[in-house]
């Protein structure tokens, strides 16, 4: 229907929802949707599904863990396997050997994508640990899917938000309101982690994609370069600056995150 150029495929429409559509196809996809209201409506429902999925199951991540799922994990003696009660037999064991071997092939061979946490090797004495990234990524996962209450204080009260967070963290928390990549500040909240107060700002683009900025006071640290980490679909750039540890996290690609990180860095140092 959209005529002359490459027709838009079903796969591209899904990629569009999932943020995997190459930028050069965006205009074609949007035109296709505008010309085909039934298709647009169907994909709107898919998008609604996705947010209901997050809303329905998201809170499960905060459930307290039973003892058996908290460390130290006691590796059960293989000879006690029958006690598992889920029918682990010897034959299963053989199957598992193959399954594990197969998964390893993928994860040893697939070195180019995903799950990069660059600081872990090399014994660097780095106060900014994996725990910080894990906290920032976890907070992103919890709050970025929130439909009704993504932030505690909205951007309409920006001055109040910035003052409040600056006061609680004892540092200037002035952040860019709009980024060059089209992400707009929608608000923020105060969180607590094991160290103390944490500030979180949330940004959103026109397509509803969200990026969070997680800031923890980190006294006695000097500045550091940006570093990149990835956990599942969430990518994060983190750094230290001026007594703060900061992480920008989102499902966005690395360049987008890195632009936001640089703008944040600039705003905090202006």
């Amino acid at each position, binding site marked *: 229907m959209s005529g002359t150029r490459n027709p838009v*495929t*079903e*796969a591209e429409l*899904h*990629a569009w929802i*999932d943020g*995997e559509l190459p930028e050069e196809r965006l205009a074609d996809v949007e035109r296709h949707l505008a010309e085909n209201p039934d298709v647009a409506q169907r994909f709107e*429902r*898919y998008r609604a*599904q*996705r947010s*209901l*999925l*997050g*809303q*329905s*199951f*998201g*809170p499960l*991540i*905060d459930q307290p*863990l*039973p003892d*058996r799922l908290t*460390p*130290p*994990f006691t*590796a*059960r003696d293989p000879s006690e396997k029958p006690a598992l*009660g*889920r029918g682990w037999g010897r034959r*299963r064991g053989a199957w*598992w050997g193959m*399954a*594990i071997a*197969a*998964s*390893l092939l*993928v*994860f040893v061979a*697939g*070195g180019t*994508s*995903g*799950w990069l*946490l*660059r600081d*872990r*090797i*090399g014994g660097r004495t780095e106060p900014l640990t*994996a725990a910080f990234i894990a906290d920032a990524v976890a907070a992103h*996962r919890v709050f970025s899917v929130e439909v*009704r209450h993504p932030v505690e204080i909205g951007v309409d009260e920006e001055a109040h938000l910035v003052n409040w967070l600056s006061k609680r963290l004892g540092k200037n928390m002035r952040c860019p309101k709009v980024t060059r990549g089209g992400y707009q500040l929608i608000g923020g909240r105060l969180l607590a982690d094991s160290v103390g107060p944490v500030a979180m700002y949330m940004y959103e683009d026109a397509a509803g994609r969200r990026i969070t900025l997680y800031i923890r006071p980190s006294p006695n640290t000097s500045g550091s*370069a*940006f570093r990149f980490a990835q956990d*599942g*679909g*969430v990518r994060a750039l983190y750094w230290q600056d001026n007594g703060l540890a900061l992480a920008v996290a989102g499902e966005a690609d690395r360049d987008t995150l890195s632009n936001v990180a*640089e703008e944040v*860095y600039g705003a905090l140092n202006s």
Partner: protein
Amino acid sequence: MTGEDAIPGSDMSPPDIDDRAIAAHVPRLRRYATALVGNRADADDLVQDCVEKALANRHALRDPSKLGGWLMTILHNLHISSQRGRRRRGAEVPVEDLADDLALSAPPADRGAVRDFVRAFAQLTDEHRTILLLTGMEGLSYREVAEVLELPIGTVMSRLARAREKLRILLDGGTQQVVRRIK
């Protein structure tokens, strides 16, 4: 400023996966498992088995940064094998309790929608639940889903399209759009 420090150590032996590293992934694994199997008790069994398998095979994971995906793959494979046993035994735990619990975690106005969604989701096949959770909940890219499920990326995409359409019919009623070709 954008330093991406070279990893010094391909010649160094990687540090062992320890309890703490695995524990950091447990809440996510548990959320995924609960949504997948539809009740907490079976989900906790699944996660516990997954943690044990991972610890027993910890030396086999060469690249500790891939721990998250590796755990997902282990959990996925464990689930498939436990489903085989279940089908033979015909056991099925109803999803109602979970639907009620999750509805209570939602704002009052959304409770009905959450309950309906959890019930509809439970009617999907395992394959469809898996693909919707990995993309929509865990936020994995198509490529990462393909790695976790050990499938070609094209299969991931076509399965995702079918899963979304099935769920749409379950939630909204109406007739299924036949998706003839994905590409």
